[in-house]
């Protein structure tokens, strides 16, 4: 019966339209109200498209301050969709919604709704992390060339000014972990913090990362390491940043801590070291590194509050750990040393990260982010620019490679925009890359 009535109504509308003016369809003004969680989505300039059923015409309008969108269209059957992307404090937020049952039947104003969904994701992620060293000339291993790459995984410029960086204690995944109980559970698993080790670093000047772009942060020597170590990397680029604090950390006066003239002082990071250690304990074996977001003053206060330190690792000052709020963690990578996987333990609690990427030390291997194949291929601008057949993942039996098969660096060179996966599981988010992306 309902089908029958619908058919009759549609037939009547068509007959009326034909009978009125077969060459000039009657225009009807309709209003689409954007809704979020049952309330008006009062945001201006949200792009809304309205397509007729035949797919011959698509109308575009933007919302006003109340979240309403007005279209003037011929009577007919339409589908509407809305998409709005924004970023708040480095978090990429996408609002999207559609309504496929819009029937415009007469000249009266007709109102419709589009219910929006809200999806959040981090803008800035760790694209590549390298601290595990490379073969040294003439023999041995070289690990003064550690760096990490921050990548804007979104189509909008990201503000990285408030990003901070630290590692967890213990410094190695295979080291004795005092936070583990007899059952192998982390004592802070149910707490709202994780134990930051030695120092929390922050930028000293505003930092913006354009869409699908990156910045490189040198950890020890911001120089061209390839001048003496062919297997190493060149970290002297003026665009790079440097973890510097030569005034405060004695060990940082050692010869390996140097910065190229080309790098401006505005690219120097700083910290307030805590604990008895005299240097940042970035292990070249299996660190658990994380990026957080908090103001400089907040990071400094966290580094100075002796009474708030956690002493589970040991009451010696060297084991002082700052309780870093989990909610402030933006991204992280947990690394296990290939030779010590069996005796390694995860240091991030499962609500922050699960899994670890296995990296063999002293081979020049890096932890490189896997490509989100579906999302990357979905970007229309990537058409014809993606390079497949990625061979950069390691052959090492302990390592894994990128299952997407997309050669991210080659694709970027070809002009593609890459979106990397971010599942908060280092074993799925990263793979062992045989050669640093900076050496391409």
């Amino acid at each position, binding site marked *: 019966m309902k089908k029958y009535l619908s058919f009759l109504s549609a037939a009547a509308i068509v007959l009326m339209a034909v009978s009125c003016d077969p060459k000039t369809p009657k225009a009807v003004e309709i209003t689409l109200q954007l809704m979020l969680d049952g309330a008006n989505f009062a945001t201006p300039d949200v792009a809304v498209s309205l397509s007729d059923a035949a797919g011959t015409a698509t109308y575009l309008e933007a919302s006003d301050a109340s979240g309403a969108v007005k279209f003037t269209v011929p009577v007919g059957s339409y589908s509407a969709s809305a998409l709005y992307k924004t970023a708040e404090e480095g978090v990429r937020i996408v609002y999207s919604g559609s309504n496929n049952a819009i029937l415009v039947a007469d000249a009266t104003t007709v109102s419709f709704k589009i219910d929006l969904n809200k999806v959040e994701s981090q803008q800035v992620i760790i694209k590549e992390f390298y601290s595990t060293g490379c073969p040294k000339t003439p023999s041995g291993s070289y690990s003064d060339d550690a760096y990490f790459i921050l990548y804007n995984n979104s189509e909008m410029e990201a503000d990285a000014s408030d990003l901070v960086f630290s590692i967890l204690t213990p410094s190695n995944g295979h080291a004795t972990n005092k936070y583990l109980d007899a059952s192998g559970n982390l004592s802070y698993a149910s707490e709202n913090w994780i134990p930051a080790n030695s120092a929390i670093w922050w930028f000293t000047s505003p930092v913006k990362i354009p869409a699908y772009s990156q910045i490189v942060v040198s950890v020890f020597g911001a120089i061209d390491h390839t001048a003496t170590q062919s297997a190493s990397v060149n970290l*002297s680029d003026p665009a790079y940043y440097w973890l510097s604090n030569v005034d405060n950390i004695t060990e940082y006066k050692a*010869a390996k801590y140097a*910065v190229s*003239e080309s790098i401006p002082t505005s690219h120097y990071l700083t910290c307030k070291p805590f604990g008895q250690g005299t240097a940042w304990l970035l292990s070249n074996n299996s660190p658990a590194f994380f990026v957080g977001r908090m103001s400089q003053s907040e990071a400094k206060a966290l580094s100075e509050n002796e009474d708030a330190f956690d002493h589970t690792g040991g009451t010696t000052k060297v084991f002082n750990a700052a309780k870093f709020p989990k909610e402030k963690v933006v991204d992280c990578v947990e690394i296990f040393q290939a030779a010590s996987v069996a005796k390694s333990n995860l240091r991030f609690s499962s609500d922050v990260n699960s899994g670890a990427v296995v990296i063999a030390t002293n081979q020049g291997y890096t932890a490189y982010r896997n490509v989100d194949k579906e999302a990357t291929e979905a970007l229309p601008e990537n058409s014809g620019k993606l390079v497949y057949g990625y061979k950069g993942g390691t052959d090492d039996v302990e390592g894994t490679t990128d299952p997407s098969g997309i050669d991210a660096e080659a694709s970027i060179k070809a002009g593609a925009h890459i979106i990397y996966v971010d599942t908060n599981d280092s074993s799925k988010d990263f793979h062992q890359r045989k050669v640093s992306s900076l050496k391409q």
Partner: protein
Amino acid sequence: MRRFLLVLTLLLTVSLGEAVAQKFTFAGTVIDRSTGEPVDFATVVIEGTGQWAVADGNGRFAIKSVPAVKTVVSVSCLGYVTWSREIDIRKDILQFRAQLDPDNLSIEGAVVTAQEDANAATTSRTIDKTALEHVQVMNVADISSLLPGGATKDPSLTGDQQFNLRAGNAENGNASFGTAVEVDGVRLSANASFTNVSSTGNSFKGVSTNNIASSNIESVEIITGVPSVEYGDMTSGIVKINTRKGRTPWTVTMSTSPKTKQVSFSKGFGLGYGRRDRPAGVINASAEYTRSISEPMSPYTSYDRKQLSLTWSNLYSHGAFSDMPLRVSAGVSGNLGGLDNRADPDKMIGTFLTRKDNQVRAQFSADWLLSRPWITNLELKSSLVYADKLERENGLYNAAVSSTSLHATQRGYYMAEDYVPGGDNPAVRIAPGHWYNVMALDDRPLTAKATLKANWVKSAGRVNNKLKVGADWSLDKNLGAGAYSEEMASAPSYREWRFRDVPAMTNLAGFVEDNWMLRAGKDGRLNLIAGLRWDNTLIPGSAYGVTSSLSPRFNAKYTVFTEKTHRNRFLRELSFRASWGVAVKQPSFSVLYPTPSYMDINVFTSTADAANVVNRAYFVMPRTIEYNADLLWQRNRQGELGLDLNLGGTKISLAGYLNRTFFAYNRGTDYDRFIYTLTPTSAVQGLPIPAENRIYSVNPTDGSILVSDRTGALSPIQAAGLEKKQFITRYFEDNDDNPMTRYGLEWVIDFKRIKAINTTIRLDGNFYSYRSLFTNVLPYCPSTLTSFDGSPYKYIGYFYGDNSTTNGKETRTVKTNLTITTHIPKVRMILSMKLESSLLNYSRSLSERQDGSRRSYALADRTDLLSLEERSIYDGEGFSVFFPDTYCSYDDPAPRPFLEDFRRARNDNPELYADLSKLVVSGTTYSYTFLKDFISPYFSANFSVTKEIGDLASVSFYANNFFNNMGQVYSARTRTWSSVSSYVPRFYYGLTIRLKFQ
């Protein structure tokens, strides 16, 4: 002391005032029991008087002017078992016959354990050739395992080994440094060495025994009790090593074990007769080559010992010496060798470490038997020991940016500059890349020593008296160049420290000792010995000046009766002994002259150019070396009680001792204040002068950095610097305020031989207790840290017993060995099995003051440094915290009470609280730090066999830990099991073949 001197004077007066008694001649023949042939070069000694003679080619000997004496006469000769018997000389004895048995396994009574010296008034043990060959000693220090309760160690020569008598490992008090080692009377000393110090500067090692050839040792005497005053410069016993002397056949020895190979040759040549048919003496020659590796699986890092020894000895008993025979000996021994890892493929390519262990030992001695009423004999001993311990290490260096090597020794600022050949740049800039450099440490200690000693022996009735008076002189000097680089252009940072510029240390000593033997009953006797040694150490050209010390020593032994009169009774022998004495250990050069060190602060680093070259400036602050004029020589006060029994043929020897080490050498620390200027890298980044045109210079006085334009286009720019205040340590040699205490009991039970199975059983062992409490108040500043405000750390804490969680330790151990020896003379074979056991292994860390009061607090909450509990840290498990007593700041040197201010700061001064918390010692990560630890008992079994094949050859084989016990032991403190391999050496074996021919 005054009382002692009075007694000594009285004794001397009595001695000197005694009437001269009648003299006799003691003469006879020494023959080989098996062949009836005379034994030439046999030495006959009248123990009670010290008089001696050497048998001539017909085996005849004569000792004239012998006072009436009832004493032991011993006859010894290389290759024969020493013969000894008590003789009552009360008339001329002219036809005495001593029959010597050849020293081989065909005779009864061969022993392979350490033997107690029954005639000594203090604890003294001898290990003879049979035992040394049976256990196949490669390093003479290995014989420690033959002492009561001694434990076998993993044998290797790639690490230095020392004697460590009546002491444990890793203890305070420098026990091995205080143990004297002599080879044929030549004192080996570490006094002139600069390298016998630990890396922390707090402990000092004794001489290494690695360079002593083991194949040519005839016997080793170890005196752990209170020795004669003629022995000085030692606090922890004496080891006297005697090499073979006399005519011997060729002896060829070949040894092999997984880690060590050895081949040696030796021969004692008679030189025949010279003018007027007088003997020209005997030359003993020996050569040994030993090679040891550290790890059989990687046999590349090795230690070599190539040693050649020549000793000439002769007796002059004709003509002018017919009544006053003179025995002369001269010898030289040279060793070439050392550690070398050049062949080790596991090392970094091109790197190596070689450490020479070359040594020359020369000695001359003369013993003149005057047998005059006013003097019995006169002895002269002199020796010279020179060692070359040059260490060369080829290191691989690399730097991604230019690096700096500092050689400056004066306070000031230095900008690193490229090396100019022939120059003496105090700060050398080395270009980026990798390079090799050989650093050398040239340590060449030289020790010369001479002793002149006179004995005067008298006898009256049942009383014998021997007065010994002597003087000795020793000189220690180092001829080494110290540290240097073989290529200055690429040398790492180091400072010249020429050992040879350090003044020599001379010691002059005089000693007097009176030895009384009083006979009581049939064979009872009382032996009383009192002696005094006066040492004067002169170190001209230093603050130490002249240091004098007195060492009184007493020994008493009462032999109630012997087996001679009680052979058929159950209690066959009974004697008691008691000793007390003081011994002083001279310091070594590493004690007196700590290596100068410097605080090098990188005050400026420019940005790197395209070639990664940076300009670095350093502030060099020499650490003051303060020669402590109040330094006292380390001394040991030792008491000992002994009891020897023979119960139905079972011999029991007990020795209890109490040793206290006073003024142990230790390194003291203090702090000075200084200010320097630091210019951060950011201060020169982006300056108008282009980077490629910059010339950096530093003001040597104020540290300011000036950037000049090499083109002259722009005026120089002074970079903005920051003023930094900092402390610097300075070191001085110091003494421990609180003595270390060691006491123990040693027992040796030799059960009656089971004749039916030719077997003897020995049960030996020791109980050992050690307690040390470090009570010096030392300052400490964690200078590598920063203060809350970002400046270098600005507080100093004054810690009772240093800034360690613990300031002492106590241990108690019981170790017992069961040795079963089967000797079958008919087949000339001896087998032994030794079961080594640790029955008690107790230790506990201490944290307390000298009076036992609180030093550390128990914590209620380990995360709250002020949650202090009233309970003792020793009461159960828990965490603890330790605070300095006082502290001061950089700006206010007046000490303030720490805990009071720390508590207050927590409430009202968070910055001060944060800073002071860095002085708080809560350093233990374990809750069981102060719990008592008991390691569960563990065992190991060793097996050895020696078989002689006629007189031509013998074969020895041993297997240590032959059950390959790799079990686990339990720690009561940590409640964990761990491998016993930390306590027991792994299964190990060795084989030796000896060939003898004329």
